[in-house]
Structures are given as C-alpha cells and as structure tokens.
C-alpha cells in the first residue's frame, strides 16, 4: 500500500532563550544569553494510507501542532525522514501545495474586510481551479453547510461557527488529497461542532480525502476517526483504533454535582474525589458504574446541576505511559 504520509525517526528541536525576570535579568541576558533546546517531536514514526481519517491527540505542548507544521512544510524537521504525497514538504513546491489544505482553528485564511465569496475567488485563482469545478464545489459545500446566505457578507460580521464553515469550504475548493485540521471546532457551540463533524465525515467518505485531525475535543475524534495517534511530550505513545484507545484508557467519567443547598457530601467507595465542598463535588467514576452513581446522587442529594464529561486527554496519556512502564517492569 502506498502511504500518503510517512515519517521515520522524525525529530524537531527548538532553541529558545531563557531570561531571568526583572531589569537585572534583562541586562544580564544582553551580554550573556542562555539558550535551552526543547525537543518538540522526537523519533516519530507515522504511516497514513489514502482515505484514512486519523485523529492526532495529546495534551497542550505535546507536539501535535509541530508535527502538523512539519507535514505541511511550514517548518523544517531537525532530523529524520518525512514524505507527504511523495514530496519533502519543506521544499515548498507548488505542485505539492496544490494537493493539500490546512485549516488552523486559530489562524484564519479568510479576508476579514471582504466577503467569503471574495476569499473563494482569490483561492480559486491561487490554486488554479477550473471555473466549472470551482462552481460545483462551492455549490456542493455551501449546500452541505446550508450557508449560501453568508457568502456575500463581510467575514468580520460572521459568527465563529459561520467563519469556520467558510474556512473549511475555502480549504476544499481545490479538491485537496490531504486535509490537515488543527482544532477546527475550538470555541464552537455544540450544534456548530456537530455540523462540522457531519461535513467532515461526508468529505472523507464521499471524496476519499485523507484527513488528519488534531483536536482537544474527544467527541471530535471519537465520532470521526477510526484511528488515533496519541502524542505525549513529542513521542508517539499510541497508534491504533480509537475505540480500543478509549475502552482501554478512558476508564472513568468526570461527574460534577452542584448542590441546591449547603450539605455534606460523602463520595461512594468506587469514586475518586477531585474536589468536594458543601456546594459542589467533582468525582471520577468508573465508566461502567457512572449510571448507578448518578442515580444514587440524584436520589440522595438535592441537586441544582449535573454534568458528565469524558476523562481529559492528559489523563489518558498519563495512563498510557503508566501502562507502558508497568509492562516494561
């Protein structure tokens, strides 16, 4: 099988300078600068096949964005091998750039003072998209998002969700073979997140676009990516099925109980108490017992509010590390 993306022993190191706080520190650093080398991605092997939808997950500072930056050619690796669609990304060849797209949730490619349709026109010419394909894609994607009405509005006046939809359409106008998505649902409300997930699912299944999705939202990865790659401190710590990952390592649910009055809370035996006071309790509950514990809490305490969340990705990564250490021992 020909891989769309391959990396072998891929490593990226950054040099950054340290400075003590205060004026004295600033003067000292003027004459003698101390540098620290940080390894953002280390010895990273990855192989992705055409048409795969892969989730890249990890806590903040794990190296996810650095990896995406290397795969898109924005930055050059320090060492190792890297190939995307048969190209070395940092050579920045136009032929390569026309075959992928990248959407960074926090950096827009839309022109704020213009309408989304104006950005589309710019991208049409930039990627040399023939007029018939451009029209077909624009109609198709705006229909999928039901967003035709936003096309002729100034981008700066659109909501965050509407803007993200326009970002996604912009990135897909030239039929990219690979789509890199970095936190595409960040800051969006639940309906907008759901719409974007549906859209991405369709793009992946209908057009066979290979998608590498970086997200903090476990729901994004669970609902979209059959395969997940977990990165922690620059290392690949897991590469396999998403369901297996969550079944093996996301063993608890986080339940937050807000009490309707002041009371004393006693946690059930199987729970781990994260925080508890007379107004609120946060407990980690084994997944299989979460229903029973919720029922019990609703019966025993007057509740103002309840929320149930999945375990945070940083805890999942920690568990993977721990299980590896135990296996080694």
């Amino acid at each position, binding site marked *: 099988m020909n891989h769309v993306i391959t990396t072998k022993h891929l490593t990226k190191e950054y040099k950054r300078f340290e400075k003590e706080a205060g004026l004295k520190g600033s003067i000292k650093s003027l004459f003698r600068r101390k540098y620290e080398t940080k390894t953002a991605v280390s010895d990273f092997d990855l192989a992705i096949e055409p048409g795969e939808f892969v989730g890249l997950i990890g806590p903040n500072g794990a190296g996810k964005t650095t990896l995406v*930056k290397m795969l898109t050619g*924005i*930055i050059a690796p320090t060492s190792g091998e890297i190939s995307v669609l048969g190209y070395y990304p940092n050579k920045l060849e136009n032929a390569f750039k*026309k075959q992928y797209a990248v959407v960074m949730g926090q*950096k827009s490619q839309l*022109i704020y*003072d213009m309408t989304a349709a104006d950005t589309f026109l710019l991208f049409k*010419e930039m*990627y040399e998209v023939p007029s018939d394909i451009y029209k077909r894609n624009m109609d198709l994607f705006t229909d999928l998002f039901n967003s035709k009405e936003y096309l002729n509005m100034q981008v700066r006046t659109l909501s965050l969700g509407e803007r993200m939809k326009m970002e996604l359409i912009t990135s897909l106008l030239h039929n990219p073979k690979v789509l890199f998505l970095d936190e595409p649902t960040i800051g969006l409300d639940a309906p907008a997140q759901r719409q974007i997930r549906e859209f991405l699912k369709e793009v992946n299944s209908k057009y066979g676009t290979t998608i590498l999705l970086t997200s903090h939202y476990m729901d994004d990865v669970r609902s979209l990516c059959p395969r997940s790659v977990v990165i922690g401190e620059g290392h690949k710590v897991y590469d396999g099925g998403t369901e297996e990952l969550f079944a093996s390592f996301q063993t608890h649910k986080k339940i937050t109980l807000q009490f309707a009055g002041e009371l004393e809370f006693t946690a059930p035996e199987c729970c781990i108490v994260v925080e508890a006071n007379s107004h609120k309790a946060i407990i980690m509950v084994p997944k299989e017992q979460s229903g029973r514990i919720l029922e019990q809490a609703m019966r025993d305490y007057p509740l103002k509010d309840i929320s149930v969340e999945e375990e945070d990705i940083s805890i999942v990564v920690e568990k993977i590390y721990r299980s590896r250490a135990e296996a080694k021992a």
Partner: protein
Amino acid sequence: MRKYLEVFRWSFKMQIVWRFDVAMTMVATIGRIVAAWILWSAAFSGKELVGGFTFEAMLSYYIIGSFLASLDMSNQISSEVSYLIKDGGFSKHMVTPMNPFGFFGYMIAGESAFHFAFSLIAAAVCAVLFRIKIVITPDITGLLLGGGMAFLGLLFMVGYHYLIGILAFKFLDIGFFLHVQGSIISFATGALVPLSLLSGTVVGVLRFLPFTHVVFTPAMLLTGQISVDEGLFGAGVLLVWVAVIVFMGQTTYRRLRVRYEGVGI
C-alpha cells in the same frame, strides 16, 4: 499569472471597502495640491522664476512628484512581513502555491492602482477648479521613459522592503534595519541634507544608487526638466538595482525561510 492578478484585484477591492477612506484619500490629494498652490503662489509673487522653475513648472513638478511618491506604498511590506514572521501568520504564505514576493508585490500594486486612479481624479478636479496648467513634457520618449521609470522605481521599492521584511526570519526584530533604511533613503534623496551641499564625489556616487531615480528623476523627466539622456542613465541604474534586489530577495528567502518556526500558530 492569473493568480497574481487576482491578488491585485483583491487588494484594489480592499481599498474601496470603506467609503470614508476613499473620500478622505481624495480630500487629502486635493488638500495637498491646494496647499502647494498657495505656498508656491506666495513664493512666486512678483517673480518669474524660482530656482530655474516657472510657477507652472514648479507646481507641475510638485504635483507629479508627490503623486509618484504617494503611489509607493511599499514601506508597509517590511513591517507586515516581519510582523507575520514573528507572530506565525507568515505560515499561510508558505502553504499556498504562490511566491510571497509576488503576493506582496501585487498586493502593493493593487493599493497603488487605487491611489493612482483616485489621486488622478482629484488632481484633474483641482487642475480645472484652480486653473492649474500642469506642464508635461511633449516629448513622447520622455513620457514613456518617465512612466517606465516610475514603474521600475515602485518595483525596486517593493523588492527593497520585501528584502528587509524577510530578514525577520533571522533577526526576528528588524527595527534596526527599518531605522537605518529610512536614514539611507532620506540621505540619498536629499531630504536629510540638500544634495547641492554635498561634494561632487558624493553626489556622483549617489547617482548610482536607485533612490533618487524612484521619484525625483521620473518627475523631472515627466515635467521636461531633464533630458531623455539623463533619464536613460537613471533608468539603467534602476534596472540593474531591480535585478539585484529581486535576486537578493529570492535568494535570501530561500536561505532564511528554513529557520522559520511558525511560533504563534
């Protein structure tokens, strides 16, 4: 080529998004011409010639010179490129199939075209209202050469500011370069010290620098104050400098961009 023309169109469209800005651009041009008309009317009161210029020739030189100078919007390239490199925004220029120099060049061309069109309208209005006779050389070669030099001058300035901007790949903060380049231009164009006060050798050397040929020479050529031969020398100097600056920009970009870390995204 079409993609760069779309950048040009996009940049032009950007200029006419805000109607107040468009109106103010025209008001500013009219204001500048009226101010010059009042100032030079006072300076010429009772005199036929000032510094070898007639009133009409002086006003024409001023209008054409300031018109050419206002077309040069390139100084924003250095600050914008360096800012984008520093905050990670330059990444979008690395992932799109377009040469960043071409992108910024056509972006500035779009802005300049807007100023050209609207300043021309404002200048025409002024010329009619105040009955200003703009003296333009009748020599078609001089006209074409002057226009060509104005274009080459803008191209040089775009390349020059782009080169300074991409130095941010290495130095991150290019405040020093921006400061120094401002002083060099002021000195070379005579804005700091009148060129006539400098020694012949220094003036001779400065003739081989591009800066005086960006605005001064084409304005003098278009108003018929210098000969086509003098203009040809300036055009030759500019042509060489354009080739040098574009080559330096492309080479520097290729060499320095690998240092980019995309911090901020």
